[in-house]
């Protein structure tokens, strides 16, 4: 399956689309933190302790992330090789394609680094809480922990990462539709939706981060 360039790209597109759909879920939960502390805690607890989420969905998500990144690097390596030994002296200076589309590796790399930080902030914390320190179940701890995390540094780092994520999605979402062969009379509408999604979803994340930074727990 991985011997064909088209199928490798389909893997890239499908894993990307899967991660895109996960973002919507993630955003929904995060938004809850603005409206209701209680709802946020309930949802977070469900995500943290439900065995289906923990032992089925979470591994799938991790696999999706790994697949997407590994494939991304494999494709990039092949592409560099395909370009040949001698490069152009004069570049096209971005007149024929967008900067975003040509720098998916850069935006993706930043997002990858961010995921590392994000895992450190939340996942590692959870692991230590649950399995190292074997703390008792506390269904109300999530909100406070989240809000306290967003000091100035975190807020800036998270916001920058989300901008890069948005840029990644702006090309990536529409691109994955093209890769799986989507092209019909709804094509234009889907493209528009993909681009809107790439702006709105990361903006939502940034809004939440900034909101909590500006409204610390008194």
């Amino acid at each position, binding site marked *: 399956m991985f*011997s*064909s*360039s*088209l*199928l*490798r*790209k*389909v893997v890239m597109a499908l894993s990307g689309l899967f991660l895109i759909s996960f973002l919507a879920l993630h955003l929904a939960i995060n938004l809850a933190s603005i409206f209701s502390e209680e709802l946020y805690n309930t949802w977070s607890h469900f995500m943290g302790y439900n065995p289906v989420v923990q032992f089925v969905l979470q591994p799938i998500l991790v696999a999706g992330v790994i697949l997407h990144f590994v494939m991304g690097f494999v*494709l990039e390596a*092949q*592409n560099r*090789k*395909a*370009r*040949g*030994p*001698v*490069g*152009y*002296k*004069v*570049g*096209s*200076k971005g*007149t*024929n*394609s*967008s900067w975003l*589309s*040509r720098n*998916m590796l850069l935006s993706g790399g930043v997002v990858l680094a961010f995921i590392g930080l994000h895992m450190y902030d939340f996942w590692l914390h959870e692991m230590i809480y649950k399995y190292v320190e074997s703390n008792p179940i506390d269904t109300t701890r999530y909100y406070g922990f989240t809000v306290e995390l967003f000091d100035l540094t975190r807020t800036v780092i998270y916001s920058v990462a989300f901008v890069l994520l948005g840029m990644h999605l702006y*090309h990536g979402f*529409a*691109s994955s539709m*093209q*890769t*799986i*062969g*989507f*092209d019909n009379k709804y094509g234009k509408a889907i493209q528009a939706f993909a681009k809107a999604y790439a702006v709105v979803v990361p903006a939502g994340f940034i809004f939440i981060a900034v909101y909590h930074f500006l409204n610390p727990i008194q």
Partner: protein
Amino acid sequence: MKIHLNVWRQKNAQTNGKFETYDLDNISEDMSFLEMLDVLNEGLINDGKEPVVFDHDCREGICGTCSMVINGKPHGPQKLTTTCQLHMRSFKDGDHITIEPFRAGAFPVIKDLMVDRSAFDRIQQAGGYISVNTSGRPVDANAIPIEKDKADASFNAATCIGCGACVAACKNASAMLFTSAKVSQYALLPQGRVEATTRVLNMVKQMDLEGFGNCTNTGACEIECPKGISLENIARMNREYLSASIKG
């Protein structure tokens, strides 16, 4: 008008090349770009030097032989125009023009600005045809009506001149636009549907074997294509390929 050229010179595939600069005077705006190079070469020959070798033949924008990257753009600055149809009126007096060969791992340089694009031929040999023999007694041409829209879309894909600008423009040196144009031409016609599955699988396989890169949908190929071949063809090929892979 006066122009300053910076031209890639390379003796053959085995040696390394380098840029040489040339200054030209008395260039007319009505000259085509290649006629300007003719003037350069005439001067070089009169000085006993080897002329700059470049691919060209029909000089009317249809054979797809001419190539070159001019100031960073395959076929130069004008949209929907091959190098041979580019005229000097697209440049200004005193301009510096850098001319490079099409660059891609799968298009090795033969000499100067001339590259080997036989990979394209091999992609087509892998399946870019409909298997009918010359018999003198096939079905009447009007036996199968074809929707005008489909016939026109097939024609539009078939107008690809196989010049390789898509590969030259692509940051990944991907040949998807070229391959998909050929796949699309046949996929859109009832005559081509019969072998659609094997065709797309074989052509993509050959495309990969030739060492072209992967499409990342930057769209540079469509912008630089002198014949305006559409990205829709790539989506169509992706679809054809997926369904062919599922069918097996």
